[in-house]
């Protein structure tokens, strides 16, 4: 097992008048090769959890193990952890500061001690991973890009560190539909082609149902569900509705059909599956 959170709690401004409990009693195990989607309301602690995963903040209670090592026992190791686990914050383009894209992306690997000669290679590779052309982009200013391109460059700047795990905090937030689907195909590539472990926060249930292999539902600083998308959208629909989270639209439609007594199976995640079910229903009615 790769990452292991053991009974982790986190409180902002501990012992201060404005203290906020952000996470309580989190137990979580992440293996290599997973694609995990995290969903939950704004303020439920998703971002805090992500920051704990790569050692940016220290839990106020509990322990975090990465490859069986307690990461806060030995602070010198933290940089190594961050090399293994890359974190892209929400709106990562807000952290741009270099004059050109090459330097922007090279910032990470340079800090991690990659030699000058290898930087070109490293930048090239990470731009390629986000499907951008090295020659035409390397000298442009990161601020001259479109929203979707900025986002991909920002992710490339994390990829340049060559982490095994990529953590993405609401990567598609405020992107137009086209840039959004482009970015999603990049993320799918990272998972399938480049074999990265992905942990991703998103509010878009369609995306989650389609991409994630495991979904974690959070509420008020706790993990309340942790299962495959199918199980979650099959068994826990009422629970999800209770806490006010939406379902993928097809899932919801099929669920309503079932509720009015139609013999369709629940836990439908994609339009294709729904099509099959509805065709079956129509044919049945014809007979």
């Amino acid at each position: 097992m790769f990452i292991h959170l053991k009974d982790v709690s986190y409180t902002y401004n501990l012992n201060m008048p404005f203290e906020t409990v952000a996470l309580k009693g989190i137990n979580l195990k992440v293996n290599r090769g997973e694609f995990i989607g995290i969903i939950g309301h704004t303020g439920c602690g998703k971002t805090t959890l992500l920051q704990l995963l790569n050692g940016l903040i220290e839990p106020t209670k509990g322990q975090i193990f990465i490859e069986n090592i307690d990461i806060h026992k030995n602070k010198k190791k933290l940089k190594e952890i961050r090399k293994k686990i890359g974190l892209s914050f929400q709106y990562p383009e807000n952290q741009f500061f270099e004059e050109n894209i090459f330097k922007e992306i090279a910032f990470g690997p340079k800090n991690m001690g990659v030699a000058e000669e290898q930087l070109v290679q490293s930048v090239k590779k990470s731009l390629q991973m986000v499907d951008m052309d090295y020659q035409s982009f390397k000298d442009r200013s990161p601020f001259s890009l479109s929203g979707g391109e900025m986002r991909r460059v920002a992710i490339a700047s994390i990829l340049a560190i060559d982490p095994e795990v990529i953590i993405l905090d609401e990567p598609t937030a405020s992107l137009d539909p086209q840039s959004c689907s482009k970015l999603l195909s990049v993320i799918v590539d990272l998972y399938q082609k480049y074999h990265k472990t992905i942990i991703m926060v998103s509010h878009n249930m369609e995306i989650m149902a389609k991409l994630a292999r495991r979904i974690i539902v959070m509420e008020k600083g706790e993990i309340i569900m942790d299962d495959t998308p199918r199980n979650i959208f099959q068994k826990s629909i009422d629970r999800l509705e209770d806490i006010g989270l939406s379902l993928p639209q097809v899932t919801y439609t099929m669920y309503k059909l079932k509720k009015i007594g139609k013999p369709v199976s629940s836990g439908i995640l994609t339009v294709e599956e729904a099509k099959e079910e509805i065709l079956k229903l129509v044919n049945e009615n014809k007979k």
Partner: protein
Amino acid sequence: MMFFRNITIGQYIYRDSIIHKLDPRVKIITVILIITTIFLVNSWTGFFIIGFYLFINISLAKVHPKFVLKGIKPLLFIISFTLLIHFFTTPGDIIYRIWILNITREGIHRGLFISVRLFYLILSTSWLTLTTSPIALTDGIEKLLSFLKIIRVPAHEIAMMMTIALRFIPTLMEETEKIIKAQIARGADFESGNLVKRIQNFLPIIIPLFINAFHRADDLAIAMEARCYRGGEGRTHYRQLSINSIDHVFIIITLFILIVSYLWVV
């Protein structure tokens, strides 16, 4: 990553108290009076009376003393430093001698006086900001400065700038923290290296911070213009400040106490 977490100066804490309900102008004037008196008073009895008065004010505000004392912590160093300087550098009756340093009776006296003054200064300004919302504070300052409009001091604009600055301090701090974290995630190191290196290391924080702040300022200016903001001329306020009997009583009691503390020399 606790860079900015301990700043409580300027923090407003809402409570349902008499002090919170006082007119901001009254509170601002009170603080100015207190500070003036602190530097005029020259007796321990006087200091004791003012201290007691401050204590009552803070208790009436229903704000935990913890908050008030928190504001003092960062300045403790300056206070102790002043204290020591006075101990050793004031000429007078030598009562103790360490190596070449002489502690004088006058030195102790003066050092303690200055420390108490600084202490009261912080107490009274914390009392003001803890119990007055930034908006009320700037409204008060605008009104107090408005007589300066005659000599063309742009009181409204000054107050508006203060409001905006106060409004964006927490936002900027939050953002700074986020940027620092994001750069650390990219392997940035803010703790090692020599001075030049360290200053260089701050560029990845400062540059994004400025860029975002300019964007935000731009957006804000457009949003204000879209709502036809044209400065102070003829502008009315949603919240009207009004001085009522409690304010009168408060200011009279304050004046009385401060005058007594100044005149009382036993």
